[in-house]
């Protein structure tokens, strides 16, 4: 910001009476919420597709279930990834963890004919291990988490592929799983997957922790200014490691849900989440620099991405243009969010 601007805003503050409370209306107060940008994006996305594709089945029960399921699956992993971003770190390895989960469950059930729960337990163990690995490397070496988790991404993906090929000779294994595992991770009601319920559960837990608990305050402090947080006695290293484990567990959960729902295990399952989780978080108002954001915002971001990425199937457009459209939409959504945040932090 130029010095002219700085002085002007200082003048504005002074003329208000040394930072006195400005009268803000109800609507303005709503815009100040971190969720506002994500909510606006989701509403606009829905309206656009309702108009363009409503008659093609987008608004039908099956159509709604289609994008809602996709949004819920994204939400399951985007919420912990977004929470980690609020603490100032990135996790790019979630896709590989989901893929590792997928192939583990499929091998246990499909190849060794064991109970799928054994595969799930092993996958949880793998997730915790990778989360700890990511977290400890980041806090001990102080390397950027972007790089560390990029390395983990490649290592886990490679290990998963190698093991899958070594054990079964293939990296894509059918997983016809029924019984209790299916009921828990893949049951379906009129087209609406149980992934929606899982996403809501993850959201409730994350929202409670970030908004109400001390640990949540520590998350924001760690992301806002890690030195200051530490100076105030916040155990920033512990906070980060715990959140890395959480993002890995989110990946394990979505990996289990998708594998059992789609009845197929593959090492590449969830590779998209590496970027879509971050995109959902950013659209939902989480700052890339950390220290700001909300769980509800991430949900709105996931809804937005779900609507847009699946709604394009109902448009009947040339497939090249659908890609362009998704990209354009994301860009505008993020720009709008940025603008709202400028208003929120008093520079409107």
């Amino acid at each position, binding site marked *: 910001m130029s010095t002219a601007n700085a002085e002007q805003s200082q003048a504005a503050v002074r003329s208000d009476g040394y930072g006195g409370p400005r009268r803000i209306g109800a609507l303005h107060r709503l815009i100040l919420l971190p969720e506002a940008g994500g909510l606006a994006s989701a509403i606009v996305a829905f309206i656009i597709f309702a108009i363009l594709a409503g008659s093609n089945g987008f608004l039908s029960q099956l*159509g709604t279930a289609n994008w809602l399921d996709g949004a819920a699956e994204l939400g399951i992993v985007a919420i912990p990834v977004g929470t980690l971003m609020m603490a100032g770190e990135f996790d790019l390895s979630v896709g590989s963890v989901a893929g590792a989960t997928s192939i583990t469950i499929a091998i246990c059930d499909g190849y060794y004919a064991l109970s799928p729960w054994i595969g799930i337990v092993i996958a949880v163990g793998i997730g915790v291990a990778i989360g700890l690995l990511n977290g400890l490397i980041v806090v001990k070496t102080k390397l950027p988490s972007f790089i560390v988790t990029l390395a983990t991404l490649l290592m886990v993906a490679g290990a998963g592929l190698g093991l899958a090929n070594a054990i079964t000779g*293939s990296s894509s294994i059918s997983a016809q799983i029924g019984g209790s595992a299916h009921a828990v991770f893949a049951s379906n009601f009129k087209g609406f997957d149980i992934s929606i319920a899982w996403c809501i559960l993850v959201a409730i837990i994350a929202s409670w922790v970030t908004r109400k608990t001390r640990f949540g305050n520590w998350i924001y402090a760690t992301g806002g200014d890690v030195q200051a947080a530490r100076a105030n006695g916040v155990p920033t290293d512990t906070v980060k490691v715990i959140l890395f484990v959480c993002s890995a567990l989110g990946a394990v959960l979505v990996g289990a849900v998708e594998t059992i729902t789609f009845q197929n295990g593959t090492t590449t399952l969830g590779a998209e989440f590496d970027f879509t989780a971050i995109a959902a978080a950013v659209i939902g108002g989480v700052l890339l620099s950390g220290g700001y954001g909300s769980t509800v915002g991430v949900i709105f971001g996931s809804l937005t991405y779900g609507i847009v990425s699946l709604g394009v199937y109902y448009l009947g457009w040339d497939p090249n243009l659908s890609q362009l459209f998704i990209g354009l939409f994301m860009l505008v959504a993020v*720009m709008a969010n940025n603008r709202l945040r400028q208003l929120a932090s008093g520079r409107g």
Partner: protein
Amino acid sequence: MCTARRKRSAMRASALAAAAAFLVVGTASCTKSSSAPTTSSSAQAANVSADNKGITIDFVSGPLNDSFFPPLYNGVKDAAANLGVKVNYIAINEGNLVPSSVQTMQAAIAEHPSAIVVGDFVTSSVDPLIKQAIAAGIPVYVDQSGQESWAKDGAFGFVGQQGGAAGNAAAQQMISAGAKNVLCVIHNAGNPYLNQVCNGFIATMKAAGGTVSELNFPISDSTNPQKVTSDIGAYLASHHGIQGVFTLNAAVGTDAVAALAQANLTGKVKVGTLELSKVAINDVQNGTMLFLVNEQPYLDGYYGVLFAYQYVKYGLAPVGTVNTGPSIIDKSNIQKVIETTQRYPDVLGSS
């Protein structure tokens, strides 16, 4: 204050510009793939086109960033234009193959078109959805992949080729050329169709007493020619005695040719590939590539739409499978291929 206001109106301007861009893009592509009247001028044709306007076909198949599918998509577009029907091409995301295969099919079912043509690449996930579509009253035609299960699912037909047959045909070419120790390069691990091709290749080679080794690399590398060339070159350098290299798409095939050239092995090691491309055709013509397996994706696209249309309208369909491949292209029949690609560049393969 002034700068703040200017900034605000600049933001508003760019927001409006983006919104305008949407609407332009939206209306442009809406008109692009909606039905076009037939080129015939007879009154009967006009009647047909009036009927046909009510027919919509959802074609669920692969993405256009995979070089196999643009010719297929061209076939789809040509058929849609010639028949005067509306076709919605729903592209599966290969980077997220399994979930996308399911979601695209679910979207097609939700649209409730007159018929669905689907590339059943991940049968364990998509077969249940084919059954669901049929139970909902939407006839399904399976295209290009899913040759084992289409009948069980209740689909009314299949057009495409057997992945295994493509592998067999390729293996025969290698054997005839005297290559017994061969490398199969898999650029997209996890793609069931390509696995079938490779498995067919391996089976035929082994039956003839040959040996096959496999080279896998991640799909993200496969679009980087330097990486692919050096990966193949490195493999050849560390595994002596390889007499042939079989690749599963034309880009990787031409990279293999480059790798051989770098290692001074041109002519000593035979190269063959699935799929056609302009460069690959040239390589066959000048002898650096031995053969191409032509899956004729244009026909997959065209026939898919055609057969669905005939079934919806008249209840007629070919019985059983219609094979669009594999057909082998080598130096003996390269001339016709060259003529076609010069005249119609997007029909046989990528440019």
